[in-house]
């Protein structure tokens, strides 16, 4: 068994979950960020995780066992509409006194943080399990 591949997959899983936490915390940090004159309104982001084969050589050799490595990219969230609040005194209010805030669902982002954290810890447990398998095999004789 190739322990290094398994460790690589777990590490990639941890990185992918970390990206999800990054996206969620970025959104939460900007939940009340308005669009000041000139710059566009903050667009909420989400981490999209796709899988890639482990290496080109494996793809070329047609390996029947597709070990998949997860990779995350931050993309703008689709289908979010800005949330408008009536604040006539706000410097960024429009002519009707409405201020636009990013359409960020606080609960959803918090849920993402929690599930991503659990998944991160699960990948960490998997990595430690791989390590103990490797060490245990070496200790057979003694």
């Amino acid at each position, binding site marked *: *068994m190739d322990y290094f591949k398994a460790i690589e997959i*777990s590490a990639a899983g941890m990185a992918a979950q970390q990206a999800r936490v990054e996206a969620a915390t970025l959104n939460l940090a900007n939940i009340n960020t308005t669009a000041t004159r000139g710059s566009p309104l903050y667009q909420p982001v989400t981490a999209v995780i796709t*899988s890639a084969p482990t290496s080109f050589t494996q793809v070329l050799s047609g390996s029947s066992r597709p070990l998949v490595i*997860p990779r995350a990219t931050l993309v703008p969230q689709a289908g979010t509409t800005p949330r408008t609040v009536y604040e006539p005194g706000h410097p960024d209010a429009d002519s009707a006194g409405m201020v636009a805030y990013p359409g960020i669902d606080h609960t959803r982002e918090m849920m993402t943080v929690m599930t991503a954290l*659990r998944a991160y810890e699960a990948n960490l*447990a998997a990595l430690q*399990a791989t390590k103990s*398998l490797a060490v245990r095999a070496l200790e*057979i004789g003694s």
Partner: protein
Amino acid sequence: MPTVIEQISAAMSVCNLQHQVNVANIANRDTQGYQRMKLHFDRAMSGAEPPSVVTDRSVAPVTLEQDLVAMSNNLLQYETMARALGRYFSIIAVITNPNRG
């Protein structure tokens, strides 16, 4: 007829393969388009043929906890066999070398 050692080694190899599957399933829990994998054991000659990695076509959703429990059980099985192998060897060593184990 495979020896005891060969049987244990084959079982440990199955555990290694199962661990690979567990690791991939856990790491790709939130991967888009990812299909869960599992080991398929050839029913015709159970134990004679090594299992193959196939996509898990069952529709029942598997929670993260279930994945972690499965990984933990697999690890325990591997640990048990490794220790049994060690004890087996020490018995042989004592038999061949009664004075020093």
